[in-house]
């Protein structure tokens, strides 16, 4: 009697534990998603110039606003005259000025206790130099003093973010957050990787499940599964030392770190997942179906093509989704072999930069809460939505296929 009760109590506890662990998992996933979107949300309310800084010009300068690209051009010395910015300013030469420059003119002691005299000295410099554009911290800026004009600050625009083609997050004074090359780079590398991995993976899966003898399968399957356990940085190093020179020589390229090299290494990494999942799905085809097909006079190959593959199609598409997921989210290996140049990808044999590589390389040093930090989180959201889209569409495709067969 008591043992029965005890067992029932035990079952009750286990049931509750299972419910709780389910709830905890769900909650964790929700928290991560919310965190991701919350951290990224502030980006489009951040000023396009570095936080806490502003741009100042001579009061007579008619310029009203400067785009991010124009600011960068000025401070890189590419735009040197005000006339080039369609502002009709007679003192044509542009003089870029940074806060460090003041310390070359005055010693720290001349600037007074706690830099009390700094704003006055800066105002003096600006009044003297008619073509000046000064990039100064707002705390010490000569705001509202005679002869000084503050350029109005603008927020980072979504159009610049999603449509921009330059990713230079640490450019001063105005960082460029154009994520288009990163998104395209990620898609490019992953799609090519899956195009390489899929035919290869499916062939191996078919071989293992239908053609290979029991003994071959017995050692080959664990060997393949073992590949999935190798840390990705090892794949990355293998890629850098072996694949990069190989690709460079094979295609006579100036650089071996290309999108194609990234795709190759990703294909190798996605193979174990694709093979294992697809092979399991195929081997799960009921014996009756195979035997029925053979009894009807179909050959071995006909059975594979007309019975087994259609039956396993949902498993195969699961393999594809998992493979793509692995490829899109993979960080370390890609970081090491693609060269990470943030340019719009034109061909397979150029260096590209992917979203995960960007986040991994930059998040550590981006000041928490700043625009760069937020931009990286928005990139995380983009990656999240991309993977979601792929999973949902694969699910939808698999559902459509299986309903057609049965």
């Amino acid at each position, binding site marked *: 009697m008591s043992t029965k009760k005890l067992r029932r109590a035990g079952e009750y506890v286990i049931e509750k534990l299972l419910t709780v662990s389910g709830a905890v998992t769900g909650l964790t996933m929700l928290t991560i998603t919310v965190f991701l979107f919350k951290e990224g949300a502030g980006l489009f309310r951040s000023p396009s110039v570095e936080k*806490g800084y502003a741009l100042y010009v001579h009061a007579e300068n008619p310029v009203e606003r400067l785009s991010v690209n124009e600011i*960068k051009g000025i*401070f*890189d*010395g590419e735009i040197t005259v005000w006339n080039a910015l369609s502002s009709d300013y007679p003192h044509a030469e542009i003089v870029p000025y*940074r*806060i*460090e420059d003041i310390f070359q003119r005055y010693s720290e002691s001349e600037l007074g206790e*706690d830099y009390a005299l700094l704003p006055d000295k800066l105002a003096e410099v600006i009044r003297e130099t008619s073509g000046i554009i000064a990039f100064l*911290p707002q*705390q010490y800026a000569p705001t509202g003093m005679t002869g000084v004009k503050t350029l109005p600050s603008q927020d980072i625009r979504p159009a610049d973010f999603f449509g921009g083609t*330059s990713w*230079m*997050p*640490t*450019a*001063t004074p105005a960082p460029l957050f154009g994520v288009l*090359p990163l998104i395209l780079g990620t898609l490019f590398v992953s799609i090519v990787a899956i195009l390489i991995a899929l035919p290869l993976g499916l062939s191996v899966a078919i071989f293992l499940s239908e053609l290979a003898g029991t003994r071959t399968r017995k050692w080959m399957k664990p060997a393949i599964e073992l590949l999935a356990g190798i840390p990705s940085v090892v794949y990355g190093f293998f890629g*850098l*030392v072996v694949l*990069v*020179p190989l690709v*460079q020589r094979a295609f006579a390229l*100036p*650089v*071996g*770190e290309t999108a194609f090299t990234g795709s190759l290494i990703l294909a190798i990494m996605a193979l174990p997942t694709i093979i294992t999942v697809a092979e399991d799905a195929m081997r799960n085809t009921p014996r009756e179906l195979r035997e029925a097909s053979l009894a009807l006079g179909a050959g071995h190959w006909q059975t594979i093509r007309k019975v087994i593959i259609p039956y396993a199609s949902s498993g195969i598409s699961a393999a594809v989704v998992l493979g793509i997921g692995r490829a899109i989210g993979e960080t370390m290996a890609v*970081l*090491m072999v693609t*060269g*990470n*140049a*943030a*340019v719009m990808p034109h061909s397979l044999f150029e*260096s590209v*930069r992917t979203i995960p590589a960007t986040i991994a*390389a*930059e998040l*550590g*040093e*981006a*000041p*928490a809460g700043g625009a760069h930090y937020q931009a990286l989180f928005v990139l995380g959201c983009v990656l999240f939505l991309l993977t979601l889209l792929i999973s949902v569409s694969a699910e939808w495709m698999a559902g459509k296929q299986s309903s057609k067969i049965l």
Partner: protein
Amino acid sequence: MKTIILFVTAFTLSVLTLSAQRIKGSDTVLPLSQQEAETYLKQNPTASITVTGGGSGVGIAALLSGTTDIAQSSRKIKFDEREKLKAAGKAAKEIIIAYDALAVVIHPDNKVDGLTREQLADIFMGKITNWKEVGGTDLRIVPYSRETSSGTYEFFKESVMKNKNYMNGIMSMPATGAIIQSVSQTKGSIGYVGLAYLNTSVKALKISYDGGKSYTEPSVANAKNESYPIVRPLYYYYEAKSEATVKPFVDYVLSSAGQLIVSEIGFITVR
């Protein structure tokens, strides 16, 4: 069993009472600090020091939040970082513990021997794209840079490029080792690494900062006599208030025994 418990309590107590010193920051300085701490601890078995990396910015942020006693940095503290510290009522003390020279490296088959600062800047800004423009063969230049998070990236930008931005879409590698690897296997490559990382698989360029009048080879000796120009100081920052606790270790690093370790690791000594 009893002895173990005793040992553990004694250990935790000693850690708590001796106010363990924490050093955090630049990955460039990390091996140096570790080595210094190790030998320092051998001589002072009662002291306790933990050294962690993460990047120069991380170290200074930790100094601000009070989670480290010494911030190791491969760049000078930035104006706004100093301001933030000031706003939090802290004054950062700066000590230069060693110097690090950056070498510009190319593929060993490349015939070019030296470049001026202006040429280097133009190469990394994407204005010079072929080796024949700087006296080499007709070959595309492939510049390799470090990731934006690295102190080396910032220093190269400051010293060589005079704060101009790198070209759009420059190849950026996650580590110094990766730069050496890539430069050694790419014909038209050029990159920059710390002097300590130089090896025979790449060729180091002579550099001129006076417009081509004199070229200097990167070496510890040339960096020490200041004829080699791309040299950066490595810093320790600590709060003025905690000077008493960190002073013994900092003094050890600056002592002749400490500076011996500096040159063993491949950096340049302060004196």
